[in-house]
């Protein structure tokens, strides 16, 4: 690393946003960062290449407190502020988007679904154990033929005595093969979308690992098959009704992505900047060339924009004034900006940029997923367009 004046902290906080954070928000960020630096970064490239999620980290992540941290204490949470939660996601994704995805799905999707739409008995039964990482959850909304348009899902929950029987296929389900429970969204007898807590060892339930990914390789993604799976009445998420319910969960996860992507971008800017300062070509560091400087400044600028937007989003969340199209705009722009930043970083690293010995190509490949899941760039454009213009163009 080049001896530049405290360059990482300068790049990470170019606009002195630390001065806008509370002491516990900074501590949460630094605690997660320390963990990721020690336990994740050294091996992330290897795990990614091997296509494995480091399950041995699950108890340690639970101990650190990253699962459901915003929830009340009685459900195993720590009552983190939305900004602290965002900073936590940022630091997880600085390690790898797959690590952040794991936490996003566990916290923002599965735990939130139970917290928001479950009964008190369900909350007490599942949430503390999920916070401890003893129960891993996944979230099954997308289907092979219904992604951007989940309302067209085919999975059905047919009433039978004592509960329902669910039949259908879910695809692209993060943590599908690691989970003990799946939050499955299906249409009931009236065609209304409802959520169900399905134990993954229920008869008729199976998960198949999707091993062909060239992105998010450190994250487990699966296809779920539900063949007439019996789900008792007490496993129905009582408060869920209609497409708004899963979308409510997605708003949580999208909020996490708006922050997480900053971590990936910061890692790329830092790696590219220090590489450019030490890589010599034509007798001088490539950082001393105008073209490379322009690129690095563009990367920094995009990253600062991401940070400013996410911080304000967090403050809106905290004050109760958050509207979901604001989350959409931030998810859309931050995922896309991080992708652009990662691509520039990869370029600055030249040949080394295509090796997972350096993080940018890994972030770049991961961010292709981040740009797509939880609502594609286009879908978020349409959400904001509808909000802005009052015309639905879906």
């Amino acid at each position, binding site marked *: 690393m080049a001896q530049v*004046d405290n360059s990482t902290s300068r790049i990470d906080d170019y606009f002195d946003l630390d001065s806008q954070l509370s002491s*516990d928000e900074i*501590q949460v960020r630094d*605690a997660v960062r320390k963990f990721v630096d020690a336990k994740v970064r050294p091996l992330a490239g290897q795990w990614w290449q091997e296509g494995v999620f480091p399950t041995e980290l699950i108890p340690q992540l639970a101990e*650190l407190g990253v699962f459901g941290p915003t929830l009340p204490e009685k459900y195993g949470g*720590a009552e983190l502020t939305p900004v602290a939660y965002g900073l*936590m996601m940022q630091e997880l994704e600085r390690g790898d988007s797959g690590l952040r995805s794991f936490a996003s799905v566990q916290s923002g999707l599965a735990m939130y679904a139970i917290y928001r739409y479950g009964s008190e008995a369900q909350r007490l039964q599942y949430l503390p154990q999920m916070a401890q990482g003893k129960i891993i959850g996944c979230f099954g909304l997308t289907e092979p033929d219904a992604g951007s348009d989940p309302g067209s899902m085919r999975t059905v929950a047919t009433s039978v005595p004592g509960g329902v029987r669910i039949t259908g296929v879910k695809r692209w389900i993060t943590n599908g093969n690691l989970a003990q429970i799946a939050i499955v969204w299906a249409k009931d007898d009236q065609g209304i979308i409802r959520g169900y807590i399905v134990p993954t060892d229920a008869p008729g339930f199976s998960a198949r690992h999707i091993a062909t990914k060239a992105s998010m390789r450190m994250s487990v993604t699966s296809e779920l098959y539900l063949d007439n799976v019996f789900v008792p009445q007490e496993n129905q998420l009582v408060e869920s009704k209609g497409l708004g319910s899963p979308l409510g969960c997605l708003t949580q996860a999208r909020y996490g992505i708006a922050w997480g992507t900053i971590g990936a971008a910061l890692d790329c800017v830092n790696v590219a900047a220090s590489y450019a300062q030490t890589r010599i070509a034509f007798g001088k560091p490539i950082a001393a060339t105008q073209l490379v400087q322009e690129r690095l400044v563009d990367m920094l600028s995009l990253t600062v924009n991401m940070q400013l937007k996410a911080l304000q989003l967090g403050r809106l969340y905290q004050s109760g004034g958050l509207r979901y199209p604001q989350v959409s705009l931030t998810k859309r722009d931050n995922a896309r900006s991080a992708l652009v930043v990662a691509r520039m970083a990869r370029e600055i690293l030249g040949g080394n940029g295509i090796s997972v010995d350096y993080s940018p190509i890994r972030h770049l490949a991961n961010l292709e997923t981040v740009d797509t899941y939880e609502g594609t760039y286009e879908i978020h454009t349409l959400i904001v367009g509808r909000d802005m213009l009052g015309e639905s163009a879906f």
Partner: protein
Amino acid sequence: MKILVMVKQVPDTATRIRVAEGNASIVTDGIKWVINPYDEFAIEEALRIKERLGGEVVVVSAGPQRVEEAIRQTLAMGADRGVHIKTDEALDSHVVAQALAAVARAENFDLILTGKQAVDDDAAQVGPLVAVFLDVPQVTVVLKLEVDAEHQRLVAERELEGSIEVVELPYPAVITAQRGLNEPRYPTLPNIMKAKKKEVRVESLQALGIVPNVKVRTVSLSEPPERPAAKILTGDPVAAAHQLVELLHAEAKVI
């Protein structure tokens, strides 16, 4: 066991230090402040003793407003409460130790732990001075610590050049921690949030009855001379090796 841990907030060791105008202080702008690493071993040891024997861990630190952050970090690691001796003055080790000793004296602690030195000024004086002011025994640079609560005695191991020394002493006592004493824990997110509710009492030198009669003053600070740029030998390995030997002999004069 009622344990007091004395901590200092110092610039992160990865920070590049620059001398401020006036040549008597450093540029603090952009510095990341951390708990002195040796003090982290002291906190961890205190927490482990408390986990074994019960009791209370109190953390004290002297310095400006920013020091509260360091105290909160120790509370997030698990300390029970903090005392912040708030002062903006540039103090010497003597005055700091007087102030810390005053806090220690006000409550009866069984054990006082701190790092063997602070990594910013490397003075290594505060622990020993506090022991003197309190008139209790002290052991410095401790690698292993055992508490015999039944007999109110400590057994401490110290690393010496080429040997390990084991000492035994009664407590109350002051112990200064060496790297290797333990592996400090990470603060967890729930504990960070719980720390917010813990008490940090603010004290002033005046209230503690300390007259900041500073005897050792910093007259000047200067940066070490620039090291000459490294020479990188490239090309044919055999020729480079010959050249390296030649340089080590003629220029570096090490062989």
